[in-house]
């Protein structure tokens, strides 16, 4: 493939990743409560990190060794497997330790279902 085209591809991927990280940083700063902020953080986690890792994988895969590319693919896969578990645990803990009025919720179907209130 044309080396210039690959350069542009790497640049594009890195730019998309960085822009998404910027948006999620803004979101963490400005959104009202824990859950909405976690949504914003999740955006950086999925698209931002995977775009950046993919860009790094293509760059080093061409420069050094193709195995670097597969290493980045494996990293993305591992990230996608582990990230939701931490997010779910944090959301659950945040909900259970909250005082009333901590969140802005339009609908809360969970409130009456908790065994310990």
């Amino acid at each position: 493939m044309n080396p210039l085209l690959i350069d542009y591809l790497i640049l594009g991927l890195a730019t998309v990743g960085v822009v998404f990280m910027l948006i999620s940083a803004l979101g963490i700063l400005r959104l009202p409560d824990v859950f909405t902020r976690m949504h914003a953080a999740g955006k950086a986690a999925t698209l931002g990190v995977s775009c950046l890792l993919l860009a790094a994988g293509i760059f080093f895969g061409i420069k050094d060794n193709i195995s670097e590319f597969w290493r980045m693919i494996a990293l993305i896969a591992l990230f996608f497997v582990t990230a939701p578990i931490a997010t779910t645990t944090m959301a659950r803990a945040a909900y259970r330790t909250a005082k009333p009025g901590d969140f802005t919720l339009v609908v809360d179907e969970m409130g009456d279902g908790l065994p310990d209130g």
Partner: protein
Amino acid sequence: MTRLLIINLFISLLWPTLNGDYSLGALFTGFLLGFVVLAIVRRSYGKFFFYATGFLLYVLFAILQSNLKLAGLVLGTIFSPRKTLRPGIVAVPLTITDPFERTLLASIITLTPGTLSMDLHYRDGQDVLYVHSIDLHDVEAFRRDIKVNFEDRILYLRQLQIDLNEGALLQNTPEAANE
């Protein structure tokens, strides 16, 4: 299912041995060849992997799509103070019972930005997954979306797997062997 996968891996080891080329690419080619052979012998094996790959691509596409949607939403909320978010927690009753499939569903929901699975409770005679959504307009539509988009697809994959296992049982019975 597992047996066929082991046979497939065996064929993928056989191919580099016959070729004398012990590289990762040869191993992969062997795996693909074994897959094609097994998919011809057992249709449901090919079908299962076909739909599993399709499901994976669908999930990746859903993640990408909701990422873009959420980026617009976040920017809209930040830069125009008049527009407010409508976050909420919705109870989604679950049809699937297998622990692995439930973990899969909850992880997919958390991975798509904009939705976040929070907890799993037994309530009113059925298991309920609580899902937090960042911008909720129609509770019933949201519930239906999750069930149709993700749960039904996982259930369909489950059905394909069951078909595959029952097919294996049928082949071992004497009646099938006589045919």
